[in-house]
């Protein structure tokens, strides 16, 4: 019996020739990522060492990454104090993959890791963030864990008691129509699979659509695999992965893709043809409440958000700028844009996208998570409606339990900004 990509990665990381689905392994961790919640990880880490007589020291500081993104700049003295505590720990232990609040090399963890070449095919990547699934886009096995589990990883260098997950093969075929992209594909898939349909499973993406998809789109797909309950999403590394790592992430070393065996044991195979896919919208208050944009077109929108680890990359901003160039955000609607990283912000400035967006009336904010998780920057008022390119629309998600959040692609968001209501970007005329 052959192995899936994730089986192969876990076998290697556990020092075994092969691992079966359901086997319990303790893989060595290649990269351990945290953000502001690193403050809690530090607490738990120090508690592990209490009474042991051992000096608390992470197993390998070069494999720890800490990126401030959830609350940048700090929205409260409490957050600022947490960030200060993390900085002190980073300095004390020589953690080099640290990205502070900066306009040049700061940004969202799920963009900072790929663009700096921290993630490589075949790695085991853990992060104290559920959207760590994103890094499967580079052929790594990447999944979210809690702060205490991260403290354990910092101490042992291993994730303990991991069950080798079953894999669902998602075969995607056809050419995405104009104004339809990776976000529409993953929203469609989450709607099909359901919010818990892939729990304890991995979504492994294949097919000609995926082979032609740039890494930015693959990051969008894998990012939202968790919204179907999946442990992770993964795109087996290929020529595009190597191109991305060489050209965009500055990786010089050899890249060794890990691919599935022809007789890998998939629990299920899904076939999806995207050639007639319509733009998709996830309606309040679950991500699997997905409908074609036409069925909710005309819904008034108070706030539009473009950004996040799902859709704050350069091609997302380019799409929004192309649609909004020479147009105006409708009165009665506000539009916030959050580039995913300082690097993307600079690229968007150079390409003129920031000017297009600002002249249209959008507010371009600093790189970071923005209002996605309802902490600061762009909270919603009572009864308001948001249309957002982020990844979650749970009740209360954007800071107000009486507000509603719809999720969509950058094209839908930008087209809707012009009309002030949910709009089908295919009807906006050639741009």
């Amino acid at each position: 019996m052959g192995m899936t990509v994730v089986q192969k990665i876990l076998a290697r990381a556990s020092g075994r020739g092969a691992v079966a689905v359901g086997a319990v392994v303790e893989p060595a961790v290649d990269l351990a990522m945290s953000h502001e919640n690193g403050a809690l990880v530090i607490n738990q880490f120090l508690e592990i060492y209490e009474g042991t007589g051992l000096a608390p020291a992470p197993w390998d500081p070069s494999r720890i990454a800490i990126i401030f993104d959830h609350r940048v700049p700090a929205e409260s003295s409490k957050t600022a104090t947490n960030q200060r505590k993390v900085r002190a720990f980073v300095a004390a232990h020589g953690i080099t993959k640290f990205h502070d609040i900066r306009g040049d090399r700061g940004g969202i963890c799920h963009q900072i890791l790929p663009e700096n070449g921290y993630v490589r095919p075949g790695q085991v990547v853990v992060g104290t963030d559920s959207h760590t699934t994103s890094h499967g886009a580079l052929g790594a096995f990447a999944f979210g864990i809690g702060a205490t589990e991260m403290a354990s990883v910092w101490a042992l260098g291993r994730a303990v008691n991991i069950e080798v997950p079953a894999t669902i093969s998602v075969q995607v075929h056809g050419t995405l129509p104009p104004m339809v992209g990776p976000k529409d594909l993953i929203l469609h898939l989450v709607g099909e699979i359901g919010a818990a349909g892939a729990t304890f499973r991995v979504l492994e993406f294949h097919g000609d659509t995926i082979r032609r998809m740039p890494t930015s789109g693959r990051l969008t797909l894998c990012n939202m695999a968790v919204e179907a309950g999946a442990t992770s999403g993964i795109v087996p590394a290929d020529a595009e992965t190597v191109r991305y790592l060489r050209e965009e992430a500055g990786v010089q070393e050899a890249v060794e893709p890990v691919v599935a065996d022809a007789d890998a044991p998939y629990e299920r195979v899904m076939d999806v043809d995207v050639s007639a896919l319509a733009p998709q919208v996830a309606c309040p208050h679950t991500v699997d409440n997905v409908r074609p944009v036409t069925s909710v077109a005309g819904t008034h929108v108070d706030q539009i958000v473009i950004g996040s680890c799902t859709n704050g990359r350069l091609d997302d901003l380019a799409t929004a700028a192309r649609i909004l160039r020479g147009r105006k955000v409708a009165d009665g609607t506000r539009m916030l844009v959050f580039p995913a990283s300082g690097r993307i912000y600079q690229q968007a400035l150079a390409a003129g996208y920031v000017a297009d967006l600002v002249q249209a009336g959008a507010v371009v904010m600093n790189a970071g998570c923005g209002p996605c998780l309802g902490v600061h920057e762009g909270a919603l008022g009572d009864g308001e409606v948001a249309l957002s390119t982020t990844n979650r629309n749970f009740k209360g998600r954007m800071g107000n339990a009486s507000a509603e959040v719809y999720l969509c692609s950058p094209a839908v968001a930008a087209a809707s900004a012009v009309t002030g209501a949910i709009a089908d970007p295919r009807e906006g005329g050639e741009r």
Partner: protein
Amino acid sequence: MSASNVVLALGDDVSTDVIYPGRFMATVLPGETPLYAFADHAEFNTRLKAGAVPRGSAIVAGKNFGCGSSREQAVSTLKGHELVIVAEGFGRIFLQNAINLGLRLVEAPGVQASVGDELAIGLVEVVNLTTGKRYPTRPLPAARQAIVDAGGLIPYTRRRLLETAGRR
């Protein structure tokens, strides 16, 4: 077998944003997070803070309880009140966090209960004493039992560290 009074009955897909809203995430200490449990459910949150919910009380929910974020506060906030969560299923990260921190979760497919019902929670089944219905429970994945037996992930990891240090 333990008896629990149902203090909250919820549906499917109760997210960590509902259990512990993001705006309180700067609060991380287990001694403080219990203040914000179900903060947007004002009536229940008020009762929790007033100490009007006895320890060992049960929240009953449908599928995918704890879906969403990896925030551990969603577990420590419930652990602080020593609640038991009986649900048809749990989100993966929430389940692992609960095991790591010692929050009691019971997976009982099909479970149905209303606020005020009495549950008898055993190893193999949950009995709703009010309705008389019985629901078999699904055992924890065996791999996780070692962490539960150690009293949580912190003592488990501490022991592993000491074993490693002892071999050097």
